[in-house]
C-alpha cells in the first residue's frame, strides 16, 4: 500500500504490569531507564530502537508530567504511557523531527542549570512551570526555536494521551476517560448520541478491545 505499516507485534512473553515498568511514576527522575516497549497486547507498534538516551528520557518524562500532571482529576501523561507514544512516533512516523526535539530537551535542561543550577527534572514544579512558560513564549536567550519545539512536544504529548492505546499511550484509557470519549467502535447506536450527561466508558480500541488496562 502507499504508507508504512506498523511493525509486527513482538510475541507476547508474559504481561508486565504498567506499574512495574513505571514504578511510582510521579517521581520521574528516580526512574531507571526502562525499555520503551509498551506492555499492552493492543499495542503492536514496537520500536526497533529507542529514540532517547537515558538523560533525554528523564527530561521528557518531566516535561510531559507538567503538561498533563497526575492530580485530583486522574492519571497524568506519565501514568498514561505518553512517553511510549512519543518514542514510537519519533522512531517511526515522526523520525525526521527527533533530533531537533531531543536537542530542545537538552537545551531546556541547560537553561535550568543556568537559571537554577539544577537539571530541569530536579526542579520544583513551580520552577519547571516558570521555565516551560518562558519556553512556550520563546523568551529564553540562546534558545531561538523554543516556542516551536515546545509546541511540537506539547502536541505529541496530547497525541499520546488521547490517541488509540494501540500506539502506546492512553494506557488504561486514561486520556479518553478524562474527556469522556467512550471508545472506538465500528457502529454507534442512537443512544450513543443522546444528550444529558456523559456517556459511560466503553474502553475499546479500534484494534481490538481485549486490552483491559491492567
Amino acid at each position: 500500500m502507499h504508507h508504512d505499516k506498523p511493525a509486527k507485534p513482538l510475541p507476547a512473553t508474559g504481561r508486565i504490569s504498567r506499574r512495574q515498568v513505571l514504578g511510582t511514576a510521579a517521581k520521574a527522575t528516580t526512574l531507571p531507564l526502562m525499555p520503551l516497549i509498551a506492555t499492552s497486547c493492543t499495542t503492536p507498534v514496537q520500536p526497533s530502537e529507542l529514540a532517547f538516551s537515558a538523560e533525554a528520557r528523564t527530561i521528557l518524562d518531566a516535561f510531559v508530567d507538567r503538561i498533563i500532571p497526575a492530580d485530583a482529576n486522574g492519571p497524568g501523561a506519565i501514568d498514561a504511557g505518553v512517553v511510549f507514544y512519543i518514542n514510537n512516533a519519533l522512531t517511526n512516523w515522526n523520525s525526521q523531527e527527533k533530533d531537533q526535539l531531543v536537542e530542545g530537551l537538552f537545551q531546556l535542561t541547560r537553561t535550568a542549570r543556568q537559571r537554577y543550577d539544577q537539571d530541569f527534572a530536579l526542579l520544583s514544579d513551580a520552577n519547571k512551570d516558570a521555565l516551560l512558560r518562558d519556553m512556550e513564549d520563546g523568551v529564553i536567550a540562546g534558545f531561538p526555536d523554543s516556542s516551536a519545539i515546545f509546541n511540537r512536544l506539547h502536541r505529541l504529548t496530547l497525541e499520546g494521551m488521547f490517541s488509540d492505546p494501540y500506539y502506546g499511550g492512553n494506557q488504561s484509557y486514561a486520556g479518553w476517560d478524562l474527556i469522556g470519549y467512550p471508545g472506538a467502535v465500528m457502529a454507534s447506536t442512537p443512544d450513543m448520541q443522546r444528550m444529558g450527561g456523559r456517556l459511560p466508558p466503553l474502553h475499546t480500541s479500534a484494534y481490538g478491545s481485549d486490552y483491559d488496562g491492567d
Partner: protein
Amino acid sequence: MAITLPETDVVVVGLGAAGGVAVLPLTRAGLQVVGLEAGTWMNPGTDYKADEIHNNVRALVTTGNKVAGEVPTVRRSPTETAVQQARHPMMNAVGGTSIHYHAQSWRLNPWDFRVRSATLERYGASYIPEDTTLEDWPVSYADMEPYYDHIEYEVGVSGTAGNLNGQINPAGNIFEGPRSRDYPMPPLRSCDFLDHMLEAGRAVGYHPYHGPAAINSQAYDGRPGCQYHGYCDRGGCHVRAKNSTDVSTIPKAMATGNLEVRDNCNVRRIEADNTGKVTGVTYLRDGEEYFQPARAVLMGCYTYENIRLLLLSRSGFYPNGLGNNRGQVGRHYFGHWDIQGGTLVTALFPFDINIWYGAIAQGVMVDDWADDNFDHGGMGFIGGASLHVYTEKHPIGAAAMGTFGKVERNWGSAWKDFIRVNAGRTQTAYIQTNTFPYTHTYADLDPLVRDPFGDPVLRITNGPKRNEPMAAAHAADKMEAWFRAAGACDIVNTGGGVGPALSTHAHGGTRMGSNPDTSVCDPWGFSFEARNLGVIGGSVMPTAGARNPTQTLQALAWRTAQHLVDDWNSITA
C-alpha cells in the same frame, strides 16, 4: 520510447469523484473505456480505521503516491515567491477523494448559475465585485436537473426534498431549486444535538434542515446503511456505506464489460496532432512508458492536476499548453472561501452535546444567509454562506480545543480540569461562502519547484478579496446568533477570515463558458480548441456555491460524458 497500445474509444484520466461517474454513461452506451488511475484499489476491510492518528494526524488514507510529489505552491501576491505546502488531501486511488470526503452532496441553488445577470437585475452594476471575472454559467439549473437526478440515484444520495416540482416542504431546504423527484433515501438519522440545533434555528427564524449526503441512510444498491462510528472525515467507509465512486458507479461501469481500470498509471502528457486534435495519453507504469491512443480523452483529475497536465502538454499546435492558445488555462481559478479560509465560529455549551459518534455529513444546514436568499440592498456585497452543524468529534482534536480565554495556558492542572469538563461540549460550525473568480487569482506553473519527474508543480496566486470576507462575516454573525439561541455560553467568531491557501474545493482554471476568449471549455465541458478533449471536475466550475461542490461536478461529468455519446461522430471526426 513509449510502447504504443491498441486504440480505445475513450481514455478517462483519473477515476475519482468525476471520472468515476463519467465512465458509467460512456460504458452503458457501449463505448470502450480505459480508466487511467494513479493510485490503486483501496480495501475497506483493512485500509480504513476508526482511528484519528491514522486518518487525521498522519493522513494515511488521504496520502497519495503521486500527489505527494506535486503539491502546488502558494503565494498571496505576484511579487512573492510561492511556497510549497507540506501536503494536501488530494488522493490517488480508484474512487479518489470521494473515498475520504465528507460526502455532503448538494445541488447548487438556481441563483448560482446566473450570479452576474441576477445581480445586475436586482442590485445593479455597482454590486459586481471589483476585479471579478464573473460570468453566468453556460447552463441553468433546469439544464442540470436531470443530471443531478442521475447522481442522486446512481451514486446514492440521502436527504429530504425541500422543493418537489414546486411544492415546498419546510423539512427540507426551502431555497433549493425544484427537483423532479424525491431523494432515493431518507436523510441520515438525527440525534439529540441536531434536534436541539434544529429547534434553536427555527426559534431565531431560520429554516434549518437535515443536509443531504452521498451516504446510505439505509441499505441501497446492495450495500448497508451508515454505522455512524465517527471516523468518516478523511477516512474511507469500513462498510461501504459512503458512496465513493469505487463502490458505486465504477463497479456498475465494470459490469458492462466496457471499462478497463488501469491502476498505478502516472499520466505525463496528453498528446495532440498538428491539427489540434487529441490523439491519446502518455503514461508511466512500473517504470515503462506507454502511449494509449484514443478517439477522445476526458480529463478527470483534481482541479490542480487538470490545470497542470494541460499546461505541461505542449505541442506544435499548442505551444503554451493544450487548449491554451487563448491563455485561459489556469485563469478563473479560486479556492472555496470556507473553513479553510478562516471563517470559524466555535461555540461552547454548558452541557455535554455528545457528538463523538456520527458522521460529518450527519448535520443540520441553514441556507437563509447564503446565495441571494436575503435582500442585500445596502449591504455592499453579494452572496453569503451556508451554516452547518454536525457530529463526529475525535478525541485528540477535542482535547486540543481552544479554551475561550478561560485558562492561562493549554497545559497543567487548570487546563486539564477545563478539558475534562469541556472537551465534549464544543462545536465549530462549517461555514461555506459563495466564491467568485478574480483577475488576481490564478494558477500557473511554478518557475522553481518541480515534481520527482522534473516537471514544474502548479503555483497558486491568491489575490485580495473584498466581497467574500464581507459575505462570510455576515453569515458568521448569523451563526453566532444561532449558537446563542441554542444555549451556547461562549463563542469565538473569527469573522470573514483571510481566504484559503490551497483548497479541498478548488474551482476553475479550465472554466466552462460561452465565450472562447474567456473560458477553456464550451458549454458541454469540451475544449474550445481541442474538440475531442473533455474536462470534468471542479476545474470547469465558473463559481462556487455556498456548499460542497462534489454533486455538481459529478452531474457535470455525467452531462459531458453523455454529450460525448450523443455527439460521438462530430466530436471524434
